[in-house]
């Protein structure tokens, strides 16, 4: 199986470092973005297997980013996970519309993030195998 590529987007350096390190050690290829615009560009140019994004970021929020992704064929199916300190500000309908698969509230445990990533990237029907 090829190495899965994950894009991590967060304007807080420590979150970026902690998440990237945990996932890189688990064998994933990691690319990073520090704002919503950069993340969108990278989603288009790199088509990662998964996007992990913060909600509040400069230039474009995580929610806008996900909404943008759903508008384009190339990025429509990239699963998204949100790490946020403002989870309570996002309405369930907005999450649904932007197809956000999981939300973890800060402070989260890096192990928890890895576990969620593995769940989201598991091939469909893997449990039965």
């Amino acid at each position, binding site marked *: 199986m090829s190495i899965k590529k994950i894009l991590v987007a967060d304007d807080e*350096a*420590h979150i970026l470092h902690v998440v990237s390190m945990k996932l890189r050690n688990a064998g994933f290829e990691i690319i990073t973005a520090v704002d919503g615009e*950069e993340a969108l560009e990278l989603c288009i140019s790199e088509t990662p297997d998964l996007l992990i994004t913060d909600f509040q970021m400069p*230039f474009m929020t995580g929610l806008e980013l996900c909404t943008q992704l759903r508008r384009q064929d190339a990025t429509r199916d990239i699963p998204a996970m949100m790490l946020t300190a403002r989870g309570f500000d996002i309405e369930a309908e907005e999450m649904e519309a932007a197809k956000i698969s999981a939300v973890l509230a800060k402070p989260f445990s890096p192990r928890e993030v890895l576990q969620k990533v593995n769940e989201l990237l598991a091939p469909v029907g893997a449990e039965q195998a």
Partner: protein
Amino acid sequence: MNLVQTSTCRILAEMEPMFHRLEDRARDMGLELSVWNADGLRVGEFEPNCEFCRTIHESGGGCMDRVHEIAARVSEDGSPVATCLSSGCSIVAVPIRKRRRIVGTVVACWPGRLWQDGEFVARRCDELHLDHQMLSTMACKTCDRNQQTCEELLSWLEWVVENEQALHVANNELATLSTNLSTTYEELSLLYSISGSMRVTQSPEAFLQAVCEEVREVMNLSAAAAVLNAHPPAVHEDTVVIAGDLGLTKEQVMLLAATQIMPMLAEKNNVVVENNFHWTANPELGKQVRNIVAMPLMGENTLGMLLAFNKESVDFNSVDIKLMNSIGNQATVFLTNNMLYADLQDLLMGVLHALTATIDAKDPYTCGHSNRVAIISKRLAESMGLSAQRVQQIYLAGLMHDIGKIGVPESVLCKPGRLTDEEYDAIKKHPGLGAKILGGIRQLDDVIAGILCHHERLDGRGYPQGLSGEEVPLDARIIGLADCFDAMSSDRTYRKALPLEAVVGEVQKCSGTQFDPEVVKHLLSWDLEAMLKELCQPAKTVFPIRIAQEGTV
């Protein structure tokens, strides 16, 4: 200004210290350095360090418009530029990048080789009305750069800007990491200190006050509060504790909690976060509260709530909520344990009172005697400065000192006349019997000595063991005096109560033989008349230990 512009300007402003460092280095090399934002506008005032540049500029021959054009172009397309201007100055311009974004341009200028050309200098000096000789001297220091050094300068500037930028980013990240680490440490230590300070014997108010103080400090709040619903026997009425300065009284906080927060909590059945709080019923007072987190304390039923008020400068986020949740859980554990403890304590006291009531019931004349001896003994122990635990132990021993009388025939106990020797021997068995009855209860081990020895005397003429002096335990000396004092000052089957003066006289007479003079001294120092009056009141108003609450017995 749109969002992108403000963000790039902010990024550029954060880099200011880096530009100052660069400027110093550039000056040493005879370069005039300037910084331009993404729109091609100059950052900061135009104050040339270079004497040559300043002189030209002041005489109206400056080339800032051209530099502005070049800076705007570099910011636009991101490619560095090295060129000579018609004004005779040379410039190199390199973009400043933050990741993939161009946030501005750094420009370095110096007098170009044209200034070595006498004809050019003469023409420019005439145009600008400047002294030919002076300008040549100024220019020749720095203008000796050919095309190749220009290229080198460009690549040097690019390299320096890139490195300085990387250093700036690394420093910023280190600062954020350190701040975050220190916040996390504070939060961790808050949780440690709360779990470490949960002693079940302290009052819920004291515990919650300490918790609120810590929460306020660690979370940067103007105030933290806890509302505690009544849950007897641990908390008798609804209570509020506040840490910090809220501008609302306890009653107002109670009202706020009851009228607005409680319904919100009930509806959500979870924590309530309001970053734009409005008190619907009381908008004026509500102004004191900008934002709020309310964490319910839920045991089997609602025990109360923790409130965080007015987080400084920012909104409450999920980190605050998780922290509050964890503290709330710990507080709930404490409150639940505290309730159970108070309940058990209540049950124990209820059982002990019921036991002693059986003795008093046998002889209506001694009614309330056990309770009064317990209270007098407790006060003596307190007045002698004994520890709280010891005071409690002496109180219990006083309460049960006559429990052994349950084994003495009623005919003897209630006999109105003088006792025969045999009857008196039966009476003398009651301390030993009492010790035996309670001997099986491990938790009452410490209480036994006070019961067994309360009829011993300092002079050794007491019973059952005939101990003397220091051999008689202090607990028993205290209870012995309290016992005799109460017996003399109340009616008995065989006589009426003695007047207070007679009782005091008797106590003084027997001090040193029957009673411990030290204990006597404490008793006689009180207003005994007031105390006797107080002791006549129904027991529960004298000492707040109630018979077990409804439903537990």
